[in-house]
Structures are given as structure tokens and as C-alpha cells.
């Protein structure tokens, strides 16, 4: 038997070895495909030149618009999204699946389509949009429009990530707290929220990063005031690739910062 087994074993090893190598090579190529262009960006432009152009008014304006709008969208998403995430995590209602579908749909919807559907409600031709515009609060080509676009596209991230974080908190702990005489709110504040915090922080970070990078829906809803991704497009189309670099570098650094937060204080949902 030892012989039979040994013969079978060698074959497995040889094949196993090849298979492992092929797998590692394929994975390595993919990683290079992600990494090379990022490194290439920094090699393409002299740092001094980029730094000098950071104070250009287009860069400063775009950065201001993006940071302001993304902060507002993220706040709105968190305030409206956290209770929904908790309900999705804990409810035994038959509706959770349907509601989750509604939350996930904007995640799989192309952002340009998101822009189109938002225009059918908030565009100048739609009743709500027209009413708001005549009240002096135009919902397109305005900061409000940017926030509307970013919220639609980015807020599902905080909902699904916080939902997973709440689910990660053992229900037994909540039951224990309730059974010790503490109400729902005391339990949430002292037990659920502290334990879910890293996951919630991850959701907030992802939502902010997604809002900062929002392009498709914003192009439809609010070409002005220009956010950083829109400004990249405009600079590229009007003045050429070089002129898009400063904002691209800024946004890349913000993405790296978001990644750093995910891997430290927050809980990387993909880890």
C-alpha cells in the first residue's frame, strides 16, 4: 500500500506545485496592474511643480467644494443610515430583505444612471426641482446638487458596513444587558455602539471616500460648482493631462489616508 500511495502522492505534489506557481503569478500580475499606474503618477510629475500648483484657484476651489460637500453628505448618510443599519442587523421582520435590496441597489447602479434618476426628481423640469429653484434653492448646478448626488451614491456604504458591524456584536451581550435591568437605549450606548464602533468608523470612512470620488452622478446633477473629480475631467479635456495631475495627486493621497484609517482605527471590512 505504501508504494501505491507514494506514486499517487508524487503526482499530486508536482501538479500541486505547478498550480500554486501559476496562481501566484496570476495574482502578482493583478497586483502589479493596480500598483504600477499609481507609482507611475508620482514618477510622471516633478513634486516641486505639483506643490507649486496646489495653490491655483481651480485646485483650491475644487478642494473646498469637495471637502465641504463630502462632509455634509457623510454626516447626512451617517445620521440617516445608522438607525437603518441597526434595524437591518437586528430586526426579525420579513421586510429586511426587501429594504436591504433598496439599500444595495444604488451600490450596483451606475452613477450616471443615479444622476439621471435624481434629475427626474430634482432637475429643473421636475416639480420638486422647479419649486426649490423658484424658492432660491436650486437643486442642480449647486452645492445642494453635489450633496444630493454624493448622498445617493455614497450613503449605502455606511449602511451596509455598519449593518455588518452591528451583526458582529453578539446579541447575547445585548440580552445580558437588558436582563440586568438596562433599557434599549442604555444597552445601545454602553454595549452595542462601543463594540460596533470600528465597523461604523469604517463605514463612515468608505462613505466619505466614495463621496470625495463621486463623478458620474455629479456630472449629471451639478457640473458646477466643480468638485475635484469634475475638475480633473475639465482640466484634462481643456488643458491636457498634465493639468489634471495636482488634483489627482491630492485625491490619491486622500484615498491612501482613507485606507490607512481602515487599517488602523477602523475595521477594514475586507480584512
Amino acid at each position, binding site marked *: 500500500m505504501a508504494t501505491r500511495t507514494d506514486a499517487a502522492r508524487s503526482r499530486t505534489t508536482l501538479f500541486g506545485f505547478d498550480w500554486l506557481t501559476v496562481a501566484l503569478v496570476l495574482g502578482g500580475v493583478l497586483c502589479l496592474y493596480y500598483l504600477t499606474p499609481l507609482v507611475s503618477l508620482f514618477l510622471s510629475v516633478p513634486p516641486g511643480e505639483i506643490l507649486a500648483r496646489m495653490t491655483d484657484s481651480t485646485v483650491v476651489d475644487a478642494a473646498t467644494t469637495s471637502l465641504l460637500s463630502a462632509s455634509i453628505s457623510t454626516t447626512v448618510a451617517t445620521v440617516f443610515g445608522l438607525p437603518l443599519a441597526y434595524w437591518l442587523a437586528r430586526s426579525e421582520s420579513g421586510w429586511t430583505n426587501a429594504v436591504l435590496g433598496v439599500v444595495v441597489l444604488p451600490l450596483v447602479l451606475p452613477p450616471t444612471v443615479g444622476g439621471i434618476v435624481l434629475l427626474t426628481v430634482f432637475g429643473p423640469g421636475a416639480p420638486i426641482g422647479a419649486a426649490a429653484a423658484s424658492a432660491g434653492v436650486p437643486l442642480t448646478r449647486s452645492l445642494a446638487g453635489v450633496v444630493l448626488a454624493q448622498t445617493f451614491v455614497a450613503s449605502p456604504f455606511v449602511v451596509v458596513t455598519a449593518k455588518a458591524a452591528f451583526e458582529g456584536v453578539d446579541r447575547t451581550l445585548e*440580552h445580558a444587558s437588558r436582563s440586568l435591568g*438596562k433599557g434599549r437605549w442604555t444597552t445601545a450606548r454602553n454595549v452595542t455602539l462601543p463594540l460596533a464602533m470600528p465597523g461604523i468608523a469604517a463605514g463612515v470612512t468608505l462613505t466619505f471616500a466614495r463621496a470625495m470620488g463621486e463623478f458620474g452622478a455629479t456630472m449629471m446633477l451639478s457640473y458646477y460648482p466643480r468638485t475635484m473629480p469634475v475638475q480633473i475631467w475639465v482640466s484634462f479635456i481643456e488643458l491636457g493631462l498634465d493639468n489634471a495631475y495636482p488634483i489627482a495627486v491630492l485625491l490619491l493621497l486622500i484615498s491612501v489616508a482613507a485606507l490607512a484609517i481602515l487599517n488602523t482605527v477602523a475595521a477594514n471590512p475586507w480584512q
Partner: protein
Amino acid sequence: MTLVVDGMRRSHGAFELGPIDLAVDEEVLSVLGPSGCGKTTLLSTIAGTVTPDAGTISLGGLDLTGRPPEKRGTVLVFQDGALFPHMTARENVAYAASSEKRVEELADALEIDAVLDQRADTLSGGERQRVALARSLAADPDALLLDEPLANLDAPIKRRLRDELRPLLASLDVPVIYVTHDQREATAIGDRLAVIADGELLQLDTPDEVFAHPATPFVASFTGSTNLFRGAVVETGTGRALDWNGRRLDAAIGGATVGETVQFCIRPEYVTLAADETRNSVEGAITRRVFEGDGYLLDVVPDGGDEAVRLALSPPAYERAGLDERDRVRLALPADAIHVIGGVEECSAIGPARR
């Protein structure tokens, strides 16, 4: 104060618990049953974390049905303690305590002073359960519910905590329900013992009574009465007796009528080695010998039979007898240790379990 569970039912998918009727005074009721029998669901309905489909639960005359968990005065102790992992042991106890003084008192009583400032998730299993108990007592429970609190502990720690728990729980003077799947734990801790299987309350009595007179074959098997046989009730000159594979066994027959086939059991600890032929004795060869460390189990197949009788001997008794596998022995089955269970039904517990 009495905890009363009245006609409580709860179904979940194909599983159905109840109807359960219980009244627990200021005593410790052990609830014994296999995994998935509904023990935990029973505790959860009393604690309010699961809503029963029917029936009522009351404590000291106050109807608890429908009240949220925090308004019942029932405190649950969970299998792994359910300590808040982001808090220290002290913060866990203080979470439920009315004062810092009470925390110190309980830390003394449960001998957790040394670990009070450790984070809960760094505690060992035994420490965790001590802190969980302290936290539960800090909430001044009107009824205490324990869900397999010792299940995941190593043997020596389990033994020690069990011995400490008995007087502690008795001193609380509130209804206590103690759920476990371990028959020794259940008997050691409970004033009374309820046996549950498949969502049904099979027997509720003192531990001695449950062990001596199991109500069903399942109770007999689950409490370790592994000698479970079938026999016919026959008429003798002086009364009724059992006919077991042609052998006559004297026994208290109870309500069974002549001609009926009944199941009867005898605990392995009550079977003895007999010096010579007496009534209720059988002779046969030892077919299996199992050393369990604190005792020996001998399986003896009586001549002409095929069912083995199991006999439990303490190590000194075994050594005195000087027996070995395949030796022939004579066993006595004392008439007063034979318990007739009732009409024949299949006993599922000893076969491969059904879900």
C-alpha cells in the same frame, strides 16, 4: 416569591416547545435535557428575550408576559458569561451594581478581587463565570436563570464552582432555574429536577425520585439507567412478577396488568455481585469491562440471553472481586431496585439520535 410558567408554548420552525407548566418557589430547579431540547428557549421566554406563542409567565404574582426583559427582575447567566468584552471585570459588575461597595462585596464573595481590573476578554473560563455570577447578583435578581454556566469549563474548575454554587444559589432566597445537559450537575445543584426532551417536560420531581423512578425510558437512559429491558407481567402464586426472557424477576409491578409487556430498568450501581443463587439473580460471562477512572463498568450477558446487564463497581470493590473479562459471575438484581416504567415504546435516546 414564586415563578410560575403556565401553559407556555413556543415554536420555531419544526421545533415546538411546550406546553410547559412550572412553579418554582424560593428553591433551585435544575432543568436537564439533551442539546436542542428547548432548555435555552424556556429560559429565554422567562427572561423576555424570546416571546412565547401562548401561555403566561408570572413572578411573585406579577404577570411578566409581554414585559421587556429589563422590566422583569429576571436575570440570566449565560453559558460563556456574556461579559462585555470592552470593559474590565470591575466595570462589568459595576454595570449592574447599585454602589461601588456592592461591587467589592461581590468580588469578595466570588473570589475575583485579583482579576477585577483585567479586561473581561483576558479572563480564563472559570474567572469569566465568577465575574458573570457577580454581575448577575449585583442586579439584585428577583429570579435567577442560569444557562449551562459550567458547560465549557475544565473538570476540576467545574467541580469546584459546582460545589460553591449550591450553597450560593440556595442562599439567594429567590426562584432559581439552572439549565444543564449534565446529569451530575443537575442533581448536585437542584432541589428539584425537571427533565426535558424534544420540547416536552417529561418529569419533574426531586433528584432522588427522578433517578430511582424515571417516568419514561428516555429519562431512564438520559439519567444513566442503562439497564433498560422489556418483560411481561406474569401471575405468580403470591402476586405479580416480571418474566424476562424466561427468567422470573420479583419487582414492584405498579399499575401494569398481567400479560402486559412493560419496560423496566435497574441502575448499574444497584446491580451487585451475588455469592450464590438467590431469587432475582442471573449468571453469565463478563463480555466487556470498562475502566472509567473512578469506577469499573462490567457488562454481563446472562446465559441464554442476548441483552447485557451492566454493573458499576467502585475500584476497591472491583479489586476485591478480582474479576477479569470473560470471567463468569452471578449478579443479583435487587427487587426493590427494579423500576417498572410502563407500556412499551421505542427508546430513541440510545440509538443514533434523531434531530
